[in-house]
């Protein structure tokens, strides 16, 4: 079936003229029609625009153009601004917001010929680990619809896992690509901070946010990242480092690769989870990689550090949603203060408000030093420890999440338990490091992820190692029942 083919295979069929982009697009649109109602993964569908873009891609191909993503359908997380299309960020605040411009990521993928089918559900303003904070309702996990898909990019992950598109975009601030990728059994890549432009990606925590990709394999992710990555003069934090050829790096042998096992990741790890990681390590060792233990003593401070830094930045980033220029405005404001209070009070959900309040608190006079400054120091320590570790090893490997997907509603009323879900993923965001999650087995019939973290701009090495692992395993080929 077309939807079960990899991006690489689909690109081959398109290039050989065995299938047209219009046919491919129709195929996926039909699957979305049939399967999305049970998942709630997409919240905006753009069938006519998609078919027009597909026809244009076919025409371009007819006139000699060729590129790996030309005519390939995709789904954008609804955090990316798309010109003329609603960009809600999962919030009532932006339910009526039609973006007048394209995010750089959207623009680049469009330029590469990819065809947008629609936009994916997400936790409101990317704040959440279960996709339950969305104004548009929770996304269901295709492996078990009573379970969450993870978050905040839950819609993108569920859609990719359910084969509603060959790939999807996501963003990762504290694990929002890797955690849902792990919980839905797909591959999710968060590049180095600054590798992909943040322009047009609605900001949650600017110093942590990074755009990335969901695909069904590291090889597919490499093709997508190729089109997304690169310096953007419109984003001062994007880095002007040349983009290597990711696909060409996939075949690098693992022999001699030094893999670090983070002691802090294995303390108190569920034995079933540990067994999956051990099995994965055996695969790497079998190919000649070496493993050794490394320790990052301050890594356990990741979660508290993150929950100071991220809310602080979000409390400021979300100030622009004030009911004045765009987005939700309350009815009949009686004065300016009333306009602000009710527009924001009605427009934002509980988790967003919680983080705005936390962030406002940690930045306020008298608390700034005790919270924000201290968190920055902890962040620096964690970054330094990662740097020291990467002087010893090429990659570090560990679990992506502590547990498989949990039940819808199980943690939504207990924010601290929910926040601990990101315990293994946050470190890479604090240090700005590239990381990937690849499927590595199942617990209770639910998929689990293996996380590979590398030094800054080591995307090639990470994708290569993940690809070699996927050549030797079949976990990433598993399809949720009913979505084969």
């Amino acid at each position, binding site marked *: 079936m077309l939807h079960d083919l990899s991006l690489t295979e689909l690109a081959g069929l398109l290039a050989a003229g065995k299938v047209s982009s219009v046919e491919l697009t129709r195929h996926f649109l039909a699957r979305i029609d049939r399967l999305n109602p049970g998942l709630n993964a997409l919240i905006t569908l753009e069938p006519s625009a998609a078919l027009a873009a597909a026809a244009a891609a076919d025409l371009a191909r007819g006139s000699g153009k060729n590129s790996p993503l030309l005519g390939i359908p995709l789904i954008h997380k609804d955090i*990316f*601004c798309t010109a003329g299309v609603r*960009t809600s*960020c999962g919030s009532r605040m*932006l339910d009526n*917001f039609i*973006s*007048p*411009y394209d*995010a750089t990521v959207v623009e680049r993928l469009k330029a590469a010929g990819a065809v947008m089918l629609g936009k994916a559900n997400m936790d409101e303003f990317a704040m959440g680990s279960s996709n339950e904070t969305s104004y548009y309702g929770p996304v269901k996990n295709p492996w078990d619809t009573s379970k969450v898909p993870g978050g905040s990019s839950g819609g993108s992950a569920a859609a990719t896992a359910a084969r509603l598109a060959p790939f999807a975009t996501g963003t990762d601030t504290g694990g929002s690509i890797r955690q849902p990728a792990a919980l839905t059994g797909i591959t999710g890549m968060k590049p180095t901070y600054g590798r992909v432009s*943040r*322009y*047009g*990606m*609605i*900001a949650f*925590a*600017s*110093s942590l946010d990074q755009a990335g990709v969901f695909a069904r394999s590291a090889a597919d992710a490499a093709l997508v990242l190729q089109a997304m990555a690169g310096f953007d*003069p*419109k*984003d*001062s*934090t994007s880095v002007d480092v040349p983009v290597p050829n990711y696909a060409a790096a996939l075949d690098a042998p693992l022999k001699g690769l030094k893999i670090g096992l983070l002691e802090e990741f294995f303390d108190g790890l569920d034995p079933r989870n540990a067994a999956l990681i051990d099995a994965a390590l055996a695969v790497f060792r079998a190919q000649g990689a070496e493993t050794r233990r490394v320790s990052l003593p301050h890594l356990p401070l990741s979660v508290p550090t993150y929950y100071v830094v991220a809310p*602080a*930045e979000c*409390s*400021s980033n*979300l*100030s*622009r*949603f*004030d009911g*004045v*220029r*765009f*987005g939700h405005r309350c009815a009949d404001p009686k004065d*300016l203060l009333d306009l*602000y209070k009710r527009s924001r009070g009605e427009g934002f959900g509980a988790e967003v408000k919680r983080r705005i309040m936390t962030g*406002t608190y940690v*930045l*306020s*006079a008298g608390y*700034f030093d005790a919270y*924000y400054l201290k968190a920055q120091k902890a962040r620096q320590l964690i970054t330094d420890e990662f740097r020291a570790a990467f002087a010893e090893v090429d990659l570090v490997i560990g679990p992506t999440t502590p547990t498989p997907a949990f039940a819808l509603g199980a943690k939504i009323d207990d924010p601290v338990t929910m926040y601990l879900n990101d315990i293994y993923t946050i470190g890479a965001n604090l240090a700005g490091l590239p990381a990937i999650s690849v499927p590595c087995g199942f617990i209770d019939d639910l998929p689990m992820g293996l996380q590979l973290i590398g030094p800054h701009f080591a995307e090639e090495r990470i994708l290569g190692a993940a690809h070699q692992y996927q050549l030797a395993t079949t976990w990433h080929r598993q399809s949720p029942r009913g979505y084969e």
Partner: protein
Amino acid sequence: MATTDWEVVIGLEIHAQLATKSKIFSGAATAYGAPPNSQASLVDLAYPGVLPVLNAEAVRMAVKFGLSIDARIARRSIFARKNYFYPDLPKGYQISQYEDPVVGKGSISIVLEDGSVKTIGITRAHLEEDAGKSLHEGLAHASGIDLNRAGTPLLEIVSEPDLRSAKEAVAYMKKIHTLVRYLEICDGNMQEGSFRCDANVSVRPRGREKFGTRAEIKNLNSFRFVEKAIHFEVARQIDRIESGGTVVQETRLYDSDKGETRSMRSKEEANDYRYFPDPDLLPLVIDEAFIETVRASLPELPDEKAARFARDFGLSVYDAGVLSASRELGAFFEAVVAAAGAAHAKLAANWVMGELSSALNRDNLDIDASRVSAAALAGLLARIVDATISGKIAKEVFEAMWSGGSSADEVIAAQGLRQITDSGAIEAVIDAVMAANPKQLADYRAGKDKLFGFFVGQVMKATEGKANPAQLNDLLKAKLGAP
């Protein structure tokens, strides 16, 4: 009870709008007076997802200013967010610099009324963006927002509390005004708000070290308002203390119609701005090479020019200061001197500061639009120097040049204003005047020496003012004999 001798303490925060073509963090134009919101890009409107990109030209201008006040240029400075809600602040925060400004401690000197020179410390100068404007008039039940100004680059120049009177404050502000225009980093237009200040004012009994509680007067956009607002505020504070009250720390507004300041918000009502480094912008790193490039581009500064005028042309400190108050005026003066000869620089200075300046003021013209060019003025001075006309006649000639656009020589020829320097001709007139006024002659000779002026006047009248005054004086004395 003797009244306390109060000492006034003032510090100014000057906001100079930098003369960049585009905004500090977006590509939108900064031109003044465009239709509302026609110069507001998505970045200025703070649309979801947009990001700021620093305008390098604004940085260059800030460094230029820093070098001109001998300040340390920070090799690494940080942009911070100042968070507060207001409709004309679209992001809900202003991007400014807080703990690490681009320009550190420097100083500038001002000339006081008694001619002495005082050095005023400048604490820092930092880059920030301006807010938009709220328009509360002309709309029923609504306020309008114009974001054209939002994101315009500002250099905020913060002085030490070194100023001791309203006059010193004005002198300092004028000095900074001169400097930023010299550097061509600000157009200095105060009506349009390109150059404005907040004044921190307090009083303390003379001799006490501890500062009094200060009030901050916001948004003063003329030198006159600065002076008046400070006068009012000082009197208000002294009156309050002397009548048993205390000054409260607060922000006040100056009402130029009523000539008074009034409370805007107290310290308790002040916002907690929650400053933190802006994660969308990298630290601003400035290297030595950049600083040296900017240094090489610095023009001759006002103090340097004034010193040169005093040294090379023998001008007084005051005159040298006036003539170097703007680059354009200094250039005009130098052009006159170049044509007239350095030996006549003082004469040139008197004419530029005198007749020329009053004519410009009268017609409300800038020096660049002067109707008498530097070369033409030098032509007029040459006729004074060679005694073709007297200084008095020269003023008439100047007026004719100003309104008619002709050269001095053309005016002199056309109106027959050439001075009479022929002794015989002057003597003939003197003889005629003496003959016509026998009584005055007798009185003069009898000792009424004040009548000398009468005879000068009669001769000048008869010659239509064209007799050479010095010659006339000598000849008349000889003819009249001793009084």
